[in-house]
């Protein structure tokens, strides 16, 4: 029952909304332009920046300055690795809590979440020292371990909310129709669980890719993912606008796309089901 809205009013709200939307997006748009300018053109006044010719030389320069591809690979390995391990551990747990709940299920879930509320700086020293003694400082393995653990509660929680929506009656119906356990898992449960697992994966990749406390503190030259690599552009080299922009736009583009695709599911994951 949508009410008819007067056209002038719709035009006005549209204009206002678009203005705000473009302003919010402008910093990203701006580095998207600066990335394709020469270093000299990039520090000119904005109108001259717009008029300057396009070039891709900054992207090559970023790769030359330090091995950009390695840091990009680090980010991919760390984000995907931690997500994969977290899924492997979390799927059975979420599954059992959703389908065989006990009196303690709720408390276990809340306790898991509470570990996420621990401020990272509170455990920085022990983790740092343990990593130093175990030789895990500045290794991808170390970062995968930490990111798996800090995101595990969110993964369990998200999967749980999705699994809980799968009606158990369907399983019983399949069993009555003579489905074996294997075909029950493969043809009944899996197709229903895939969308939930997929959005969990996407959210977790976003969180792991952008994590900037542990990655900055536990990595140096070798294992540094893009968060730490970009941080190396802070003064005095931040003055290289075009190179900073090129490095930044490559660092955020993949995650921006993933975020846009999965935005509808984000609310559930980020509020732990407290807002629907």
């Amino acid at each position, binding site marked *: 029952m949508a*009410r008819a*809205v007067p056209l002038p009013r*719709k035009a006005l709200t*549209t204009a*206002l909304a*678009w203005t*705000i939307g473009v302003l*919010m997006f402008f*910093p*990203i748009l*701006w*580095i998207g332009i600066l990335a394709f300018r020469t270093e000299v053109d990039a*520090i000119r*006044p904005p109108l001259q920046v717009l008029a300057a010719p396009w070039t891709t030389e900054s992207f090559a320069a970023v790769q030359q300055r330090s091995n950009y591809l390695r840091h990009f690979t680090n980010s991919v390995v760390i984000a995907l690795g931690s997500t994969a391990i977290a899924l492997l551990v979390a799927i059975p*747990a979420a599954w*059992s*809590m959703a*389908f*065989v709940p006990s009196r303690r299920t709720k408390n*276990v879930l809340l306790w*898991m979440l*509470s*570990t996420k*509320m*621990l*401020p*990272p*700086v*509170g455990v*920085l*020293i*022990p*983790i740092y020292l*343990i990593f130093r003694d175990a030789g895990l400082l500045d290794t991808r393995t170390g970062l995968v371990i930490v990111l798996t*653990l800090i995101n*595990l*509660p969110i993964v*369990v929680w998200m999967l749980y909310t999705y699994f809980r929506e799968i009606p158990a009656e369907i*399983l019983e119906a399949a069993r009555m129709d003579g489905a074996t356990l294997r075909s029950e898992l493969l043809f009944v449960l899996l197709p229903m669980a895939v969308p939930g697992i997929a959005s969990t994966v996407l959210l977790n990749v976003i969180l792991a890719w952008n994590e*900037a*406390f542990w990655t*900055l*503190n536990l990595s140096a030259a070798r294992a540094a993912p893009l*968060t730490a690599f*970009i941080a190396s552009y*802070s003064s005095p080299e*931040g003055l290289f*606008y075009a190179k*900073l*922009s090129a490095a930044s736009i490559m660092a*955020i583009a993949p*995650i*921006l796309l993933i*975020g*846009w695709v999965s935005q509808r599911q984000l*609310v559930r994951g980020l509020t732990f*089901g*407290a*807002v*629907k």
Partner: protein
Amino acid sequence: MSTRHSRAAARLMMTPSVLLLLGWMLIPLGLTLYFSFLRYNLLMPGTETWAGWSNYYYFLTDPSFTTAVRNTLVLVGGVLVITVAGGILLALLLDQPIWGRGIVRLLVIAPFFVMPTVSALVWQNMFMNPVNGVFAWLAQTMGMRPFDFFGRAPLASIVWIVSWQWLPFATLILLTALQSLDQEQMEAAEMDGAGPLSRFAFITLPHLARAITVVILIQTIFLLSVFAEILVTTNGGPGMATTTLTYLIYVQSLLQFDVGMGSAGGVIAIILANIVAIFLMRMIGRNLDR
């Protein structure tokens, strides 16, 4: 379908997750607690001695602690006010019928996906730089003197950057909550002669109350831990102007190698965060029953 057999299997399936998280929580937490009672400096290994409560005493009575707490409150409070107020307005706007709503939505939520180090450096250099920044150019075009944001108002500049990152989060969640608002109730109120303002105050706002609380609690937990934005822009300076509690503890432990003092600060940070977490957990737990 829960037999005793499946219950045992269920417990087994949960074990890895529970053990991992238990270890992740208890081992570092126990060590932090233990270190906080030691006189322990990484530069002088092997000289650890029991320090009693003195780390806590020195951490809490140091003037930098008071400054850090004040900066933390300004940062968290400032970002919360901007994102919640802005989020409500933006959500109300995006809830209206507009052309291209889907695209505007994508534009508005985009900043949330930008990694903290990128957003901090881009704002600091491309926008707030008093010589080459876009803001400086705008000021000059309008005949004003450019403002040196990070030189004259460093903490406010960081509040601005962090707000830009979190405004999409608040907007997205409040918009979701807004879309479950009962339209018939709205129309009934309108027919009874309630103006837009009183409709907002007596129907919309109460409906949003729960979502607003969730936004505040979740953001507070993340904002207490803001770190990268400070590290790459100001390093906590000039002086102590942008040193928050998180940053102070980082400086004490990894730059001054004072493990004892840093750990005492860590314990205090955990206690502060837990005060917020208790409220959040209660709200989430209540929702789980429904």
